[in-house]
């Protein structure tokens, strides 16, 4: 990444936040360029929401510096609030109001709002425009929250687990919407538990654990850097797992049986490892039915990184 400070929509340096003596965010740094979709991934309690809420101006940092569009979000700047769209993890809507009322209310807060009816259509809620918010399904309420976050034409959009309760179709609509916004120059910071969402939607991801970024980059980079992949093979005859492991110079439990006749061992699938494997099978006179090398998935990398730091 090479950017002048003017290209950055969000900059976080060594952010720290404690609750009752426990560190929720512990030295987190992060730079997001304008027009980028950045995904913050992490297990529950890793510090995702705390980080996002500091950027939204809801909480103050204990230490470190935070800038959104060059301004400190805790500074209560009306200008900054007019440039930022927020979708909370849940809530934020009057249960006794109707979707169109909510959108018209928020439209009145901004100088050049989007058309409420058009937005309802965009998130697929035009048929529910006069249903009370309390009667909307979880996914519908989330889509309304998203529409409310967009009504002021924000430059920066914060989405805290935006698709958590959505059905697949609503999720697809949301992804397309976020991509279109990013293409028009909007910066998006989202948190998610869903690895497919991160892979489909995000230009870059940061995996956060114990209040720190433990891996960062494009989904492909993070996956390649963090995972060695797996070698899987299927044989006609049973394999002695311990014998094979030791022949490959690996610990005794390195090769495992996923189900009868289906075996796996950790990558990377180097030419030497594959040659040693097939040589051992030749010596044992075991015929291969199938041999595959599988690249690591973002999910595997995520689980490994967030488990390692727990061990």
């Amino acid at each position, binding site marked *: 990444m090479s950017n002048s400070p003017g290209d950055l929509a969000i900059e976080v340096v060594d952010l720290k936040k404690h609750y009752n003596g426990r560190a929720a965010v512990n030295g987190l740094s992060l730079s997001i360029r304008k027009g980028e979709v950045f995904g913050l991934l992490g297990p529950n309690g890793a510090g995702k929401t705390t980080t996002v809420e500091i950027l939204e101006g*809801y909480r103050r940092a204990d230490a470190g510096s935070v800038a959104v569009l060059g301004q400190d979000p805790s500074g209560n700047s009306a200008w900054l*609030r007019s440039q930022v769209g927020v979708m909370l993890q849940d*809530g*934020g809507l*009057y*249960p006794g109001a109707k979707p169109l*009322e909510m959108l018209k*209310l928020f439209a009145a*807060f901004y100088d050049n709002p989007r058309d409420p009816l058009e937005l309802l259509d965009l998130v697929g809620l035009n048929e529910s425009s006069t249903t009370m918010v309390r009667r909307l399904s979880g996914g519908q309420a989330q889509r309304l929250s998203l529409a409310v976050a967009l009504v002021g034409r924000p430059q920066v959009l914060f989405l805290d687990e935006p698709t958590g309760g959505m059905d697949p179709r609503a999720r697809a609509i949301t992804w397309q919407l976020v991509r279109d916004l990013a293409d028009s120059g909007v910066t998006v910071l989202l948190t998610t538990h869903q690895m497919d969402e991160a892979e489909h939607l995000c230009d870059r991801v940061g995996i956060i654990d114990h209040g720190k970024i433990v891996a960062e980059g494009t989904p492909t980079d993070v996956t390649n850097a963090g995972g060695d992949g797996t070698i899987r093979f299927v044989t006609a005859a049973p394999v002695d797992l311990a014998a094979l492991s030791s022949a490959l110079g690996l610990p005794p439990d390195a090769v495992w049986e996923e189900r009868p006749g289906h075996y796996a061992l950790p990558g990377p699938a180097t030419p030497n490892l594959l040659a040693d494997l097939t040589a051992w099978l030749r010596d044992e006179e075991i015929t291969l039915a199938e041999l595959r090398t599988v690249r690591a998935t973002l999910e595997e990398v995520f689980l490994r990184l967030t488990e390692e730091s727990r061990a």
Partner: protein
Amino acid sequence: MNTRAVAAQTRLELSMTVRRGESLLVTLVVPIGILIFFSKVDAMQPRRGSALDFLVPGVLSLAVMSSAMVSLGIATGFERRYGVLKRLGSTPLGRSGLLTAKTLNVLALEVFQFLLIVVASIALGWKPTIGLVAAIGLLFVGTIAFAGIGMFMAGTLRAEANLAAANGLFLVFLFLGGMAYPLERLPTALESIARLLPAAALSECVRGVLEPAGSIPTRELVVLLVWAVGAPLLAAKKFRWEE
């Protein structure tokens, strides 16, 4: 302050207030009901003057309490629960704009209550006095005191506890407020407690200015002012925007 945003928020607050049946019950039906019932049923002997002379100041004070403490407090508590306060805080409306809109909502509701009660009282045979002008000032001070109490509970208690507390306090203040019957009817110990509460202080002050050649009782005025300063200060200090 963004006036367009405050105007839109005030409109929404008003339409939400009108939509809440329980809010209309406590702000309109209960005060008017007490006015009519106790003026027609000879349930007490006023110290002087007619039953209406006693009831009108009490019911005006009750109306202020129902809007500023109960209706405002309960709505705000639930908005806090549902993250509405939090979400509005990150818009150009901001927290100060939101508080302004809530204030305007309460005042609009109170103007409507005031007119309704005065018209109903006249229809029942009450003779208005010039003291009504001074009463408006006192009712405004009472609004500040009761809004402080309502917002303190809304910003510190869970939504359900706040609902129970606001309704419970409404009943306590009604019984101990010199609103439907004179304070002297209470047992002496209870009466001395009642005289330290904002409800009795407000109704006695309003009664003072509405009486012909009446004046504001000093002790009650001091009690009212203490509540009007203390309650909002405490609310501002303790209020949490998120549950």
